[in-house]
């Protein structure tokens, strides 16, 4: 088999690691993607909670850890990040699923927002009883 060779200098568009800084749309994409970091952070917090429950040190060690000012700040940032993740996810899921389900994107979005409200209310009721 003969190989095609060329002396042409192929144009390869250079992409820098900061390509996303140039446009608000890309910047928002990166902020959204960055919410994966608080997700993993809080997963680790939950894992610590699980092991403190297993060791019967939940009220002392885990609550003490959560009272640490740095941990509280990280959790407040995580809360904001997860709200951003949640509400953009509901919008996107509506747009992505509307073709396959035959439902309007707005209907799916609203249903997920209602589900979010229901989960939040149940969570708070369980926390306060």
């Amino acid at each position: 088999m003969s190989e095609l060779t060329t002396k042409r200098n192929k144009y390869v568009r250079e992409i820098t690691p900061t390509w996303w800084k140039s446009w608000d749309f890309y910047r928002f994409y990166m902020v959204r993607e960055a919410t994966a970091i608080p997700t993993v952070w809080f997963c680790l917090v939950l894992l610590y909670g699980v092991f403190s429950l297993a060791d019967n040190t939940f009220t002392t060690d885990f609550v003490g850890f959560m009272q640490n000012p740095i941990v509280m700040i990280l959790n407040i940032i995580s809360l904001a990040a997860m709200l951003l993740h949640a509400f953009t996810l509901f919008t996107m899921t509506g747009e992505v699923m509307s073709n396959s389900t035959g439902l309007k994107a707005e209907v799916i979005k609203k249903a997920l927002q209602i589900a979010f409200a229901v989960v939040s209310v149940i969570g708070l009721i369980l926390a306060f009883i």
Partner: protein
Amino acid sequence: MINTNPKRSNEPPVWLLFSAGGMVSGLAFPVLILILGILLPLGIISPDGIIAFAHHWFGKLVILVLTIFPAWAGLHRIHHGMHDIKVHVPAGGLIFYGLAALYTVVAIWGVASI
């Protein structure tokens, strides 16, 4: 020639865990962070309810869902996000999905010992 035995991608099962995790964390993490990260340390709620919930079989199931799926979603998105900022972690798939698998095993072990 048609390759009758193409290399299968590991993405479909990972995507299943990732999309489940994205939805679980979207629906439940905000209120969970509010409860465990703000209300609990400020003493607005008592830890007793949480401890009782975690000792019930249904509570354990909820904890597994709330930990395992979001961990897969988060690590999957960091794995792909690294390429977005042109950091190509060697054997990235093995590392990130390996960590997610490890997290899964440790979480099951932890919940089982409550």
